[in-house]
């Protein structure tokens, strides 16, 4: 009963957030009628997720078979939730997927692409003018910070690879890798050639 209460609370919170994104609910509606089961192996618990145009429904039990079942320990589930590159985690040895994995990816995409319209939510409390003022005064520092972080990263990369020569530049490294690949291929060809020659010199030797 406690778990049901916790899930009910979580469901309300998530659905409230989903309603802030203008595209999330229509995208979730396309998944309606499908059942996703998350089976956590360590610690052992199960979660069923059903999506529809009103949001997500979370359940600790569901009397019907799931369309997609994800089985993994909590650590993998957590990295799946936070990582951008989900495919890498999904291909891990501890993760097991049965059924329609596209369903799971669609749900993950919707949750990852959430672009919350905070201004709308704030405008319900402060009115449109207040929300606009607050929004723009918050937006410009955030944008400035994001731009600065981006250019700092670029400058640092340039400095390390071009100026101080502490690191190898990406293009340079790629060229070396290509050379190595070529050398490996040449070596393979040479090996094959030697083998063929050896076979010529000693034709009786069994393969």
């Amino acid at each position, binding site marked *: *009963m406690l778990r*049901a*209460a916790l899930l*009910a609370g979580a469901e309300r919170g998530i659905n409230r957030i989903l309603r802030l994104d203008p595209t999330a609910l229509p995208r979730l509606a396309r998944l*309606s*009628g*499908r*059942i996703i089961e998350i089976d956590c192996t360590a610690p052992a618990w199960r979660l*069923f997720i*059903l999506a*529809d145009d*009103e949001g997500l*429904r979370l*359940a*600790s*039990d*569901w*009397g*019907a078979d799931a369309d997609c079942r994800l089985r993994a320990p909590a650590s993998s589930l957590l990295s799946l939730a936070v990582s951008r590159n989900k495919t890498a985690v999904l291909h891990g040895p501890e993760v097991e997927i049965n059924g329609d994995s596209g369903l799971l990816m669609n749900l993950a995409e919707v949750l990852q692409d959430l672009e919350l319209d905070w201004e709308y939510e704030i405008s319900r409390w402060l009115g449109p003018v207040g929300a606009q003022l607050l929004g723009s005064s918050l937006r410009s520092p955030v944008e400035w910070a994001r731009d600065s972080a981006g250019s700092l990263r670029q400058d640092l990369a340039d400095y390390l690879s071009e100026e101080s020569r502490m690191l190898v530049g990406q293009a340079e490294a790629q060229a070396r890798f290509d050379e190595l690949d070529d050398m490996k291929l040449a070596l393979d060809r040479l090996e094959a050639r030697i083998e063929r020659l050896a076979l010529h010199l000693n034709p009786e030797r069994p393969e």
Partner: protein
Amino acid sequence: MTDPRKAHDAEPTTHFGYKNVPESQKAQKVAEVFHSVAAKYDLMNDLMSGGVHRLWKRFTIELSGARHGNRVLDIAGGTGDLTRQFSRIVGHTGEVVLADINASMLKVGRDKLLDKGVAGNVRFVQADAEKLPFPDNYFDVVTIAFGLRNVTHKEDAIASMLRVLKPGGRLLVLEFSKPTNQLFSKAYDAYSFSLLPMMGKLITNDADSYRYLAESIRMHPDQETLKSMMETAGFERVSYHNMTGGIVALHRGIKP
């Protein structure tokens, strides 16, 4: 065709709370109770159970295993809590029938659902659970939440639900039951016989209806009895889950 219950000259009686009333009058009396409380039914449910009834119903939905395209019958659906959820789950290709014997409750439920935009896949039917007006093998899921207690002939109602279910279909009975812990049971008795009628008096100005509620809960068959009733009717794999210390039990049976 003779019904043994009606073979005697004197009309057989049945319980209405702790009182005995002629069978023909029980439905009438239950109807009076619900006509009286219909308008404030949801508010009273929240107050009486401290909101926990929402969790009981949530669990019922989880165990129903309803899916897209299913046909669901919500008997004694009252103000439509379960129907609303089922309507979401079965989608446009499915169908939910909200049935209640009481016109007042059905009207409150219909208005509430329409106000919330639940429409299209929901039908409202005033029907007696003992004589369900549906074809055989029609529904995937039948639920009766806090309704079986008020039915005059429970065996007939269970048999009728079995008839309308498809083979493999599930019946879910959510109903008050017997607390499993002695001490808890005492506290629960004190609550339901003194506090409950008082709350009823304050909110709906009708203490008697809530006294009936408390009494009818005590007269309702306990977990094992209801389980065997379902098995006798022909359900298979009957199981029950106690919730909130057995105050409420959810029985589930599958039609073979």
